């Protein structure tokens, strides 16, 4: 860029930029990325909520590490909180009490950290669902979908290890729960538990071990994944919804600089502000009220943070089956939930690959679909969420019982049945709703928008005046693709030789019909149909 032959001295800013460019090549980078376009839609900002809350968690977490002692040495509490004075507790609990009551801003920072963690996970859940329902996981974004899923999954465990660090009675019960689940693993369970806790539960090690996992290992991996996730967003470019001028080959929106930099920067502070306000007014994990962990104590209402509530529910509603053989016990009541837990989460993770196998669609997609235009996928997603939410109900069954004056046993039975039946019902209903919405779109295209104006004709008939849609609206409602269902090849080929069709292929074709076959999508209005109706040949 700059040349040595310049005699006139450039402005200071330019000289600094020149200096940096000579060493970092920022001009090329900026040229390529400054005008990067991002489409505008509120749902595309859900990922940003996650990113910013993650940054807030890191910032507040660093502050907390300055005062937290990850040690299980027993000390006597001598701080200002009267109802615990003289109680024996671990140094971890004691230092968390110190942070909460004596460190300047400590309690606020703790609460920001914890609230941000809950919101981070909730944000990831919603972001993931946005990507799922708009089909934004399709080629070329499957890998990035997996990165995102891994972030959610690791986020759960980072959250869990963090929740366990203060060594309070609630989290200690949670750790004991987890240890119980590990113990239920056949053959190696006891070894795993001994290895993790450095001996019998609770031992004197787990806080220090969870601490390094919580502040170093897990967030380190997450940070790496998050960077990779963002790089891939840049490489793939963002999807956008159908609309005039928007195609599979372009991105319509605003440039990164200056518009998105300003928006994203501002949004960061808005997110920080909202979380800080919540942390300032609402208490979270009040460890002083929970007391220090002691294995001989337990409280009712001992639940994990919401993102583990699903696992809690699985264990709570599972019948306490066990098999005793040759002096060994197989605790199915705990082990089956432990197996179902990753299976349910994994189902959503591998969905993109299953869908592309079923549809046989290997093309690139950069248009975000409207959920109604992919009824089977949308129905599957809603079914999955239903199963997840029903298990959350199971995880909080005691609070449902007390707050709605129900019997906890009935709730447990409800969850047992509807964990299986609920998704099926949700699937059917959602699919019907999607098809209904497709019909409505079709109706809108052909007959226009209902104007709400009732007109009385000379002969006495009442009709509602329909307003035709604008060209842009018409495009939006008809731009989606129409897929043809897959067919099995003819049983014999052209030479009369019997064709061999594998079982998997038969299954694929069957499933494909479930996506695109008759009654699984509503035909888009054709140009002829549109013209015929619009030409004024009357109503119907």
């Amino acid at each position, binding site marked *: 860029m700059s040349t040595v032959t310049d005699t006139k001295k450039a402005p200071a800013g330019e000289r600094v930029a020149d200096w940096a460019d000579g060493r970092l090549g920022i001009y090329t980078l900026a040229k390529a990325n400054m005008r990067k376009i991002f489409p505008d839609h*509120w749902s595309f*900002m859900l990922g940003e909520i996650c990113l910013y809350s993650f940054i807030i968690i890191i910032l507040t977490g660093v502050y907390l590490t300055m005062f937290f002692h990850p040690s299980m040495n027993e000390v006597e509490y001598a701080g200002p909180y009267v109802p615990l004075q003289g109680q024996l507790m671990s140094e971890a609990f004691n230092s968390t009490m110190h942070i909460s009551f004596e460190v300047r801003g400590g309690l606020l920072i703790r609460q920001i950290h914890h609230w941000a963690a*809950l919101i981070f996970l909730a944000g990831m859940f919603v972001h993931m669902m946005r990507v799922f329902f708009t089909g934004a996981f399709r080629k070329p974004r499957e890998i990035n979908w997996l990165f995102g899923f891994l972030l959610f999954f690791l986020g759960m465990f980072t959250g869990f290890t963090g929740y366990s660090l203060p060594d309070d009675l609630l989290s200690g019960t949670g750790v004991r729960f987890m240890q119980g689940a590990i113990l239920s693993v056949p053959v190696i369970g006891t070894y795993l538990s001994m290895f993790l806790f450095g001996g019998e539960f609770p031992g004197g090690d787990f806080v220090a071990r969870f601490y390094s996992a919580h502040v170093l290992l897990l967030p380190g991996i997450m940070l790496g994944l998050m960077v990779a996730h963002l790089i891939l967003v840049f490489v793939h470019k963002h999807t956008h919804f159908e609309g005039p001028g928007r195609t599979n080959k372009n991105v319509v929106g605003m440039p990164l600089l200056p518009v998105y930099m300003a928006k994203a920067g501002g949004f960061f502070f808005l997110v920080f502000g909202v979380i800080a306000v919540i942390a300032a007014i609402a208490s979270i994990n009040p460890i002083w009220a929970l007391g220090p962990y002691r294995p001989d104590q337990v409280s009712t209402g001992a639940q994990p943070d919401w993102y583990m509530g699903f696992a809690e529910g699985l264990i709570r509603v599972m019948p306490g089956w066990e098999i005793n053989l040759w002096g060994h016990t197989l605790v199915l009541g705990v082990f089956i939930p432990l197996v179902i837990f990753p299976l349910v989460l994994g189902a959503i993770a591998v969905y993109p690959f299953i869908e592309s196998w079923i549809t046989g669609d290997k093309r690139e997609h950069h248009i975000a679909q409207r959920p109604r235009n992919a009824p089977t996928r949308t129905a599957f997603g809603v079914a999955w969420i239903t199963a997840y939410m029903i298990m959350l109900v199971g995880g909080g069954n005691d609070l449902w019982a007390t707050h709605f004056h129900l019997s906890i046993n009935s709730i447990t039975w409800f969850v047992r049945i509807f964990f299986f039946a609920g998704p099926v019902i949700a699937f059917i209903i959602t699919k019907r709703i999607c098809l209904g919405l497709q019909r409505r779109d079709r109706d809108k295209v052909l007959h226009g928008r209902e104007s709400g104006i009732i007109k009385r004709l000379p002969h006495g008939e009442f009709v509602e005046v329909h307003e035709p849609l604008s060209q842009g609206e018409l495009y939006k409602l008809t731009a989606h693709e129409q897929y043809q269902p897959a067919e099995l090849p003819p049983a014999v080929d052209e030479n009369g030789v019997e064709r061999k069709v594998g079982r998997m292929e038969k299954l694929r074709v069957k499933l494909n019909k479930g996506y695109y076959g008759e009654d699984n999508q509503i035909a888009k209005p054709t140009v002829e149909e549109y013209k015929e109706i619009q030409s004024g040949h009357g109503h119907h």
Partner: protein
Amino acid sequence: MKKLSARRRHPLAAVVVLLLALAATGGLYAAFAPAGTAKADETAQSLAIEEGKKLYSVGCASCHGTGGQGTTDGPSLVGVGSAAVDFQVGTGRMPAQQPGAQVPRKKVIYTQAEIDQLAAYVASLGAGPITPTEGQYSPDGADIAKGGELFRTNCAQCHNFTGEGGALTHGKYAPSLEGVSPKHLYEAMQTGPQNMPSFPDTTMPEKEKKDIIAYVQAVNSEKADNPGGLKLGGLGPVSEGLFAWIFGLGALIAVAIWVAAHTAKAKKS
């Protein structure tokens, strides 16, 4: 001796042994049982019992029987003691509104004087835990921290960390302890109402009960301070999670929609 052992297989031998055993236990009981009669102010006491009996016939007898012997609708009140009456009637649980999994706390309809009369009558049916005096239950000077430890060991399983209450099986529940007076807390521990186990002085001395009362007062009453802000019911992660979803993520999505709605517009030419 020979005569006796020869008859040990007599058809009536078992009956004789049983009769002898009963006579022995009864005799021993009569000899060692504590004298249950009140000595002080005999006339006032009998007057209270008489008034209590009248109240009892109106408000309690339909379920507990005319003499407190119990019916299919209500348990016997013989031996429950005045403390149980003071708790059940004093917290409005009795008289019960309707049968169900558990009788809830509700508006108290008797005056304290009437409750005392009822208690005196029921206590006269058989000895049981006696209504505590203020010196017994007053939490003044008790060890709050010790009370907390005892609470987490003995009470939190059902009543939650700070006594917010919790669910039991088949629609039963451990009620919230918020706003329960020290006297009623003490009586509940003493008598074990409804599904609660009782903690008599032999298993939990009076001083420990006081410590627990002091703790409950310190963490779950109007006096209790919540350094973290709104306590969201004190129910832990479930209410926190709901709050994070509805007010946390809800607010952030509202903000996102607002930001997206205020986009830079291309100039119209």
